[in-house]
């Protein structure tokens, strides 16, 4: 078993309309690491995350949890890599919140009893158990966001990819999410503009701009480097 959770070499990707979103990105993340991926709008963060479970395929080498990201590995890969989309409306598609959270475990082939247990636990963890039988599209944005996170937690993936998990959350939900993520033993890669989330959760930060990694190092040093942050449209993590 390899020690790398993520190993990406020279990854390039252009959208069908010709827009080059990734231009030779190289990054390795060790197992168990929690890494913040920061960068301005349009830097390519979301695009990059979509490559890590094979939803987008670019040129270059992508290895996740010791497996090359190729068709043959998709079933195993998708059970072990949990991706929370930036927009919860893209993530929630079932008639009820409970069904949505149960969808992942169910398609992993777990027993009905285990599926129910995991769904309940995941909803409990994000404080949404009370809404289990509501319809996702009737929830507020922050509530949907929390349910979206639960859908992935229920799969107990080894690698968690979170795209802007705190956007739209109220301060209390945000704090409890940060606390929850902190207790998880999994490898986490979190794309965010929330500098306080990055500082509180991650030891390591990676700055991305224009489809490339432009800085990589300890979060406390990078995120307080005013010149670096300024240069890439970010701000320093303040008042923490």
């Amino acid at each position, binding site marked *: 078993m390899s020690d790398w959770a993520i190993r990406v070499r020279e990854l390039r990707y252009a959208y069908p309309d010709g827009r080059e979103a990734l231009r030779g990105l190289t990054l390795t993340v060790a197992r168990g690491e929690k890494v913040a991926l920061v960068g301005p709008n349009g830097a390519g963060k979301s695009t990059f995350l979509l490559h890590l479970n094979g939803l987008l395929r670019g040129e270059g080498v992508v290895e996740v949890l010791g497996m090359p990201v190729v068709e043959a590995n998709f079933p195993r890969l998708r059970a072990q890599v949990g*991706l929370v*989309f930036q927009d919860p*409306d*893209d993530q929630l598609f079932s*008639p009820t919140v409970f069904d949505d959270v149960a969808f*992942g475990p169910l*398609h992993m082939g777990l027993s009905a009893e285990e599926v129910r247990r995991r769904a309940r636990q995941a909803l409990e963890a994000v404080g949404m158990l009370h809404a289990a039988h509501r*319809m996702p599209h009737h929830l507020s944005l922050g509530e949907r966001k929390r349910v979206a996170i639960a*859908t*992935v937690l229920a799969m107990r993936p080894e690698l968690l990819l979170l795209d802007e998990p705190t956007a739209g959350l109220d301060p209390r939900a945000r704090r409890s999410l940060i606390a929850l993520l902190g207790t998880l033993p999994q490898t986490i890669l979190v794309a965010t503009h929330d500098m306080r989330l990055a500082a509180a959760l991650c030891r390591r930060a990676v700055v991305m701009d224009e489809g490339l990694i432009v800085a990589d190092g300890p979060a406390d040093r990078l995120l307080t480097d005013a010149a670096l942050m300024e240069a890439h449209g970010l701000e320093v993590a303040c008042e923490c």
Partner: protein
Amino acid sequence: MPEMAESDGTSGLDPRARLLLTLGFIVVVTALPDGAWVEMALLASSLLVVAVITRTDWASLLRRVALLLPFAALAALSLPFTTAGETLLRVGPLRLTDRGMLRFAALIGRTLLSITAASLLVRQTPMPQLFQALQSLGVPRLLVAIAASAYRYSFILAEEAARMDRARRSRSADLPCGRGRGLRWLWWRARGLGGMIGMLFLRSYERSERIYLAMVARGYAGTLYALEPPAWQRRDLYALVGGMAGLLLCLLMGVR
């Protein structure tokens, strides 16, 4: 936009029993011969009982039924004139017959009862539970999945439209042609609307693609799985058998 169930439906009769009873009700109503007024009245009062037990909001139920009635009346409008029988009234070349009137009235009665029964079901049972009931009653999984996503996507479409409309209105305080509501204003609105509809479909299409990706990301590979529904309770079985027996009795009385 699809109608919402009033209750959360976690208590009460099993959705499968509700669905079967509603279907049975509609079959019986349709099979009753013209002029079986007593039986129709019986069926109507059974609906009344259900509505009272479930504390249905009468006003909105009736409003919904009234909304659909004109369509039924329109479809049945030719019946009084095309059915052979004793002439009651001549309107130009048309002859209104007694048998025709009877058939017309019976059809309106049937429609009213069926629509009311179906509305009661939909009001009192959340859609997700109805879909699950369909599936566990043996309707092919794919068919149910298509119906369920059509339902889900209707919200997405409506939400997307509402969002775009809000965005447009919040930015169009100034009409280019002043306050007048002349032809130019209409043309300007129509052009805006056309663009919006095109945009709406594009946005919804892209969103549906992203939702598909989300399903794939969580292990979907072409087959949908579902949790088995809870086992039948004795109480629900009794209600189902009793209700069906009542319906059958009603039918037998009518055709006799």
